[in-house]
């Protein structure tokens, strides 16, 4: 049967697609599953930086598609997990360098030797999005509890359905539970009701994400981080486990206060 292909997309830029892809990949790899992640954001590559693999790139996705490199040569092995690979995007080309059928072919070649193939989609609804979604078995949509991100997520949900890749599932990223409690931020229930979509995870706003990005070390590997825990939970749900949603409202006690200060998550 081989790998399942999961595309992480959003419509709007800057909502956390790349962070989500890197962290789900790391969390799945930590579960001893064989994972490849593909950066489909040709011309604006970033997944390599978030994973801390930017210095190892020799060949990229476009090299593999155009035959300048064998697929194996474009796969960069992660520093932490021997069972995690990255296929980086080309930085000096654009989205038209790859076609949806190229992506399907590439994934089919990867499927037999892996458990999960994660594709980091570019923002937007054009060619790059269609490239990223074409080989998908499942689609995860990342959004933030903000009006523009929710509106764009709704557009993408419609497009994913039109491509017959639905039903997509939602990652609500950067929730500030304290603001939601005060009624100054859309709550998870508000967002689910508006988008009429199944939720696969809520990731609390967490300044550790920035630190993790600075270091090139996915936060999912940080046992203490709330956001890291949220990503680990999403990875387990992807893998078919029933994992209860975290209690983001927990704010009492020393640990709660501490994590409030550290991660806003409560």
């Amino acid at each position, binding site marked *: 049967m081989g790998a399942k292909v999961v595309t992480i997309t959003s419509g709007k830029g800057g909502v956390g697609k790349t962070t989500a892809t890197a962290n789900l990949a790391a969390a799945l790899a930590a579960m001893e599953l064989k994972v490849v992640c593909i950066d489909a954001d040709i011309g604006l590559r970033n997944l390599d930086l978030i994973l801390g693999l930017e210095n190892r790139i020799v060949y990229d996705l476009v090299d593999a598609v155009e035959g300048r490199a064998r697929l194996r040569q474009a796969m960069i092995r992660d520093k932490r997990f021997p069972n995690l690979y990255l296929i980086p995007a080309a930085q000096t080309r654009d989205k038209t360098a790859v076609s949806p059928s190229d992506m399907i072919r590439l994934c089919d070649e990867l499927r037999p030797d892996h458990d999960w193939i994660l594709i980091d989609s570019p923002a937007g609804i054009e060619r790059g999005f269609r490239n990223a979604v074409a080989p998908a078995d499942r689609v995860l949509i990342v959004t933030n509890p903000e009006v523009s991100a929710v509106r764009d997520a709704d557009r993408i949900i419609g497009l994913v359905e039109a491509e017959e890749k639905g039903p997509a599932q939602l990652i609500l990223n950067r929730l500030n539970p304290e603001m939601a409690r005060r009624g100054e931020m*859309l709550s998870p229930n508000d967002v689910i009701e508006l988008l009429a979509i199944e939720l696969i995870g809520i990731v609390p706003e967490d300044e550790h994400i920035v630190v993790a990005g600075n270091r090139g070390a996915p936060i999912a590997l940080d046992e203490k981080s709330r956001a890291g825990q949220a990503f680990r939970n999403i990875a387990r749900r992807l893998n078919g486990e029933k994992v209860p949603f975290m209690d983001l409202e927990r704010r009492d006690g020393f640990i709660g206060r501490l994590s409030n200060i550290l991660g806003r998550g409560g």
Partner: protein
Amino acid sequence: MANFIARLIGRDRSASTAKERLQLVLIHDRTNLPPGVLENLRDEMIRMISQHIEIDASGVVLQMTQDGHEQRLIADIPLKIDRKRRR
């Protein structure tokens, strides 16, 4: 109106404003129907219905609503039948 009630009972939070605004804009996005088209449709309906029955044109409300994946166009058309004219 919903805004006004929310203000009265002290629930005038920005999240509920965001939700209301999104509910409307998503309906228009999904149906590919700009708000102006709905206005035109409303005027045409008033003209058409008025040929058959007398209505209170100023009270006509035409709106889109959403229930999960389902979109509905709801028209509320008050009739003009007052006592004086039935005498």
